């Protein structure tokens, strides 16, 4: 499934050693910012949704939640905003200040380092919130709760949020070869049986690029978050899915991805992180199933996706997937429950 070669080309972190990732995969280092800025689907969607809507941004006060290197803040200034406030907890904000100065926007952008809950904004209310808050699987290490806090505290009535809609999708994939490589690897390690690590490997969702050819079912939208109305409680959810089988094949895993919509735009702008479209640094998230499902066209895989922050560590996600193959063929009937943890 996974198109490794492509991923390596486009993802600067993919070839890195574990400890390197440990060192650099922190928001205080620049590698992650380079990676995010180079993600064209992401950055251009934000740029277009802001630039194409100068009429919405003109003379408005804008809040950029988790501003990072301040690229979105600068887009907003260029689109005509009266003032932009960028807030970020990371020390990257110091670099952001230099960048804003280098682009002559220091009088238009106020950058604040700290927690959203603690910083004091130079305005009581803002007209627009912009934020790139999405994590892997939409919600893993996401900043959505911070955005919702900012919305409730600072956004004027009828204020706008960019983006304002996020939808999680699922699908089933044929992934025999790669599952064998990822999971079966542990069966024979330098001549030794390492199968005890298989169980752990099965509980770790894999963030990777999935080839669209591997997708066996229709995508099924599982959860839509409307950023104007949703609450932090909505980020723990249990939702049904129904994956309609498109071709007779085997299903080794289900995958999840998300779409993002800027519905406030004059002409709505939307991007997807699915397997059917251009690469993004979010890739897709793969959940291997214990069973291999033998599926026929027209049948369905039904079940529920249950996701909530872990009790023990709020930054981790506990994910449960219940699944069942809806078939009249008794010999192929199968159902199961799987538990995963993103940490």
């Amino acid at each position: 499934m996974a198109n490794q070669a492509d991923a390596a080309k486009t993802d600067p972190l993919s070839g890195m050693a574990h400890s390197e990732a440990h060192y650099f995969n922190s928001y205080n280092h620049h590698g992650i910012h380079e990676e995010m800025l180079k993600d064209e689907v992401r950055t251009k969607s934000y740029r277009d949704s802001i630039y194409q809507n100068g009429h919405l941004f003109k003379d408005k006060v804008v809040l950029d939640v988790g501003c990072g290197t301040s690229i979105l803040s600068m887009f907003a200034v260029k689109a005509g905003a009266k003032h932009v406030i960028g807030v970020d907890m990371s020390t990257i904000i110091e670099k952001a200040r230099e960048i804003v100065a280098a682009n002559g926007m220091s009088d238009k952008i106020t950058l604040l380092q700290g927690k959203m809950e603690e910083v004091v904004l130079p305005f009581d209310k803002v007209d627009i919130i912009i934020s790139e808050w999405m994590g892997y699987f939409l919600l893993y290490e996401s900043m959505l709760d911070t955005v919702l806090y900012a919305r409730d505290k600072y956004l004027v009535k009828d204020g706008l949020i960019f983006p304002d809609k996020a939808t999680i999708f699922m699908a089933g994939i044929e992934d025999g070869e790669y599952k064998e490589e990822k999971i079966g690897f542990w069966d024979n390690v330098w001549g030794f049986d390492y199968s005890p690590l298989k169980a752990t490997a099965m509980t770790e969702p894999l963030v990777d690029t999935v080839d669209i050819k591997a997708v066996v079912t229709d995508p099924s939208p599982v959860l839509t978050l409307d950023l104007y109305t949703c609450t932090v409680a909505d980020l723990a959810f249990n939702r049904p899915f129904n994956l309609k089988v498109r071709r007779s094949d085997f299903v080794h895993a289900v995958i999840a991805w998300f779409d993002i919509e800027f519905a406030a735009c004059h002409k709505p702008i939307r991007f997807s992180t699915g397997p059917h479209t251009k690469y993004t640094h979010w890739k897709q998230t793969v959940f291997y199933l214990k069973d291999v499902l033998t599926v026929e066209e027209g049948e369905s895989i039904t079940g529920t996706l249950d996701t909530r922050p872990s009790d023990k560590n709020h930054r981790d996600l506990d994910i449960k997937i219940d699944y069942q193959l809806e078939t009249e063929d008794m010999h192929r009937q199968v159902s199961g429950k799987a538990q995963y943890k993103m940490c």
Partner: protein
Amino acid sequence: MAYSDSDAASSVGSIREDASEPDTNTFKCLFCDQQWIRVPEMSTHCKAEHSFDLNETIKSLGSDADELTVIKLVNFLRAEAQKGTPSQTITIPDLTGSSSDKYLQPTLEDDALLFELGDLMPESDSKAVDYDEFEAKLQRDIPEDFSKIKITSDRDEDYFDSYKGNGIHREMIEDRVRTEGYRDFIEKNAKVFAGKTVLDVGCGTGILSLFCARAGAKKVFAVDNSSIAVRAKEIIAKNGYEDRIEVIQGRIEDFNTQRLIGKGKVDIIISEWMGYGLLFEGMLDSVLRARDMYLKPEGILVPSHCNIRLAPIASPEWIAQSTGEQFWEDVYGFDFSPMIPGGLLNTHEIGVFDVPDRALCGSASSHLLEMKTVSVEDLSFKVPLRITLDRDIYSLDAIAIWFDTLFLHEASSQDIKTVDSIDWGRSGIAGLGFSTGPANTPTHWHQAVLLLDRDVARQHKLSAGTVLEGTLQYAKEKGDDRGITVTVEWEGGDGEKKIKGSVTRTMA
């Protein structure tokens, strides 16, 4: 050999029985025969009945007091009590120096108090540890079979935590240069391992222990402080080696580890402890502690030698690419140049890269560490350095640092003195070790890179054959066991033009 095999076997056997139920014991008061289950209660009792303030005493040991110091204190106090010294008149000796090491020996057999170090450790703001959170973190995947964990700082927590998931173990196992290097040595030297007692420090998933057992080791102690030890145990059982490989989850200096292994009982210490630039974030301290505690005088260490290597880099193209220069100059129409050099290669930290061999512009002298004799103090060092340029350069852009690992033992045909420390890496011989240099197959260690400030770099317009002499210094960051600051200084030049330069970078 000073110890016969049967001696080792019998002591190991008895030790294992003792270890079967370490947790359920009550412990004796420090001064009388009263039994206690919880430290705070015993502490209150000591204050009330024996006029001895244990908490204050531990505080008075100072902020450097670690678990070893507290172990020594407990054993010292118990020894004094046995002698009949009244509790009020006891004066605490210096427990930090090596002269106090005799107190590492438990005064009481199976002293369960020594398992309660968590409750005894002094609290200090800078080393605050949330035990609950730590345990929860480590236990969340693996609730069962969890032995004691001791921690001294948040830093350690991060370190062991980052070694927990599957991905990184797979990556390390898949590093063929590394794993085949160890395997080839073990398999080609099975005679060295046959019938021996081996200690694997930081065993991870247990792969090196398994190689040793397969080569005929009689007994392997596989020690790791990470929860991966639980998986190692399962893997070892799955492969039928549970009678010969004993997995110990804990630190090398833990009382429990000491009790299970026994002092001076080990013939061979094997460990894959190397970090970037050899010593960044490495585990050599633990290996040296293990050597001093457990290795027989005639025992061997695998690896036996490590050679820190250094070479100059002159390649503006490679630097531009690695610092992301081109990228930052125009980001969606904005000037992001404050981020230069702010990619992965920057001017305050040590970067980690696969340096292309062609980017190097010369060779340099190296610094050899012999594992048998090196001390923890030797790991902060300043050594002379001599760089010879092998081509004309227009700037000296960076310094690359890597290491060679050597597996030598008494019967090795290769003598360390004749190993060509400069070219050895290229011609590496199977079973003799491996190099992590730019000329070799890339490993997960890559190379450490110190980027020079641009104005310094550009002062170095030098011709081939130029010799630069100076020093290489490794200095440990204060209060951070695994962080390191590296300084390279040099001067020299061709003819009239004398040049002088230096670079200091850290890996936090």
